[in-house]
């Protein structure tokens, strides 16, 4: 028997995500924007739970709401000389708005054109144990490559940000 996602939690999370994204983009204070981004990331993690992707919801919380948000806040603090610098003029761009609108309209048409999109999902969803099993069998090589990517990114980030001020 196929199961379905109830509308109420979905639309609550949608409100949180879209609201957080709007506040991230349209708040004039950079620090406030970082905190609104954190809120949107937590809401996205809730959406992953609705889609029975428990492991990814956890990773989303740890990585985006934890590490990325803290890193962003640290860089904001390190690049502000005065407290007033956090308040920025609201950058607007008609061209960017037009491009985003065109993208949204084209995607809406495309999504509307997909003939039957399922409203119900299969009831059986594999759990976190099967996710781990698959990760270390079928996806073992991408997993190892990902770890190398992370290592190189770590070394590169330390190298770039720790550089001395010799010209």
């Amino acid at each position, binding site marked *: 028997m196929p199961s379905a996602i109830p509308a109420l939690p979905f639309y609550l999370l949608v409100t949180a995500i879209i609201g957080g994204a709007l506040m991230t983009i349209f708040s004039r204070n950079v620090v406030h924007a970082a905190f609104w981004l954190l809120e949107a990331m937590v809401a996205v993690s809730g959406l992953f739970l609705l889609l029975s992707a428990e492991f*990814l919801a956890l990773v989303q919380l740890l990585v985006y709401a934890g590490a990325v948000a803290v*890193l*962003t806040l640290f*860089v904001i603090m390190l*690049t502000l000389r005065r407290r007033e610098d956090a308040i920025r003029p609201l950058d607007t761009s008609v061209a960017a708005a037009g491009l*985003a609108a065109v993208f949204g309209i084209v995607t809406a048409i495309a999504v509307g054109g*997909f003939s039957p999109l399922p*409203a119900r999902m299969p009831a059986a969803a594999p759990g976190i144990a099967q996710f781990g099993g698959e990760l270390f069998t079928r996806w073992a090589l991408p997993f190892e490559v990902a770890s190398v990517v992370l290592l190189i990114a770590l070394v590169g980030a330390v190298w770039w940000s720790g550089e001395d001020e010799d010209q």
Partner: protein
Amino acid sequence: MSAVVGLREFLVLSAVLFALGLYGALSKKSAIMILMAIELMTNAVNIALIAMSRFLTPGLMTGQFFAAFIMVVSTAEIGLGLALVLALYRRTRTVEVDRIDRLKG
């Protein structure tokens, strides 16, 4: 069960979030804000991937694995991007992308 949501709603949410991130990434003048907008866009992609995986082929979990690897790459990207912003700030004392124009002849 009264009202339910299907795959279409998830895809529309993903598209709206991606469009918002696209607007932010293109219109912002602060390098940190641009990186934050890019994070919004990667999250939109992850929502679409996981929703498709759950609704169409939940047994294979392909979308979940792709989302996990996207998370890895986007974390590497944000770490390197912020390190680059810090390095640029040390040299130029600014994070405004309009004023980082040393390659301009």
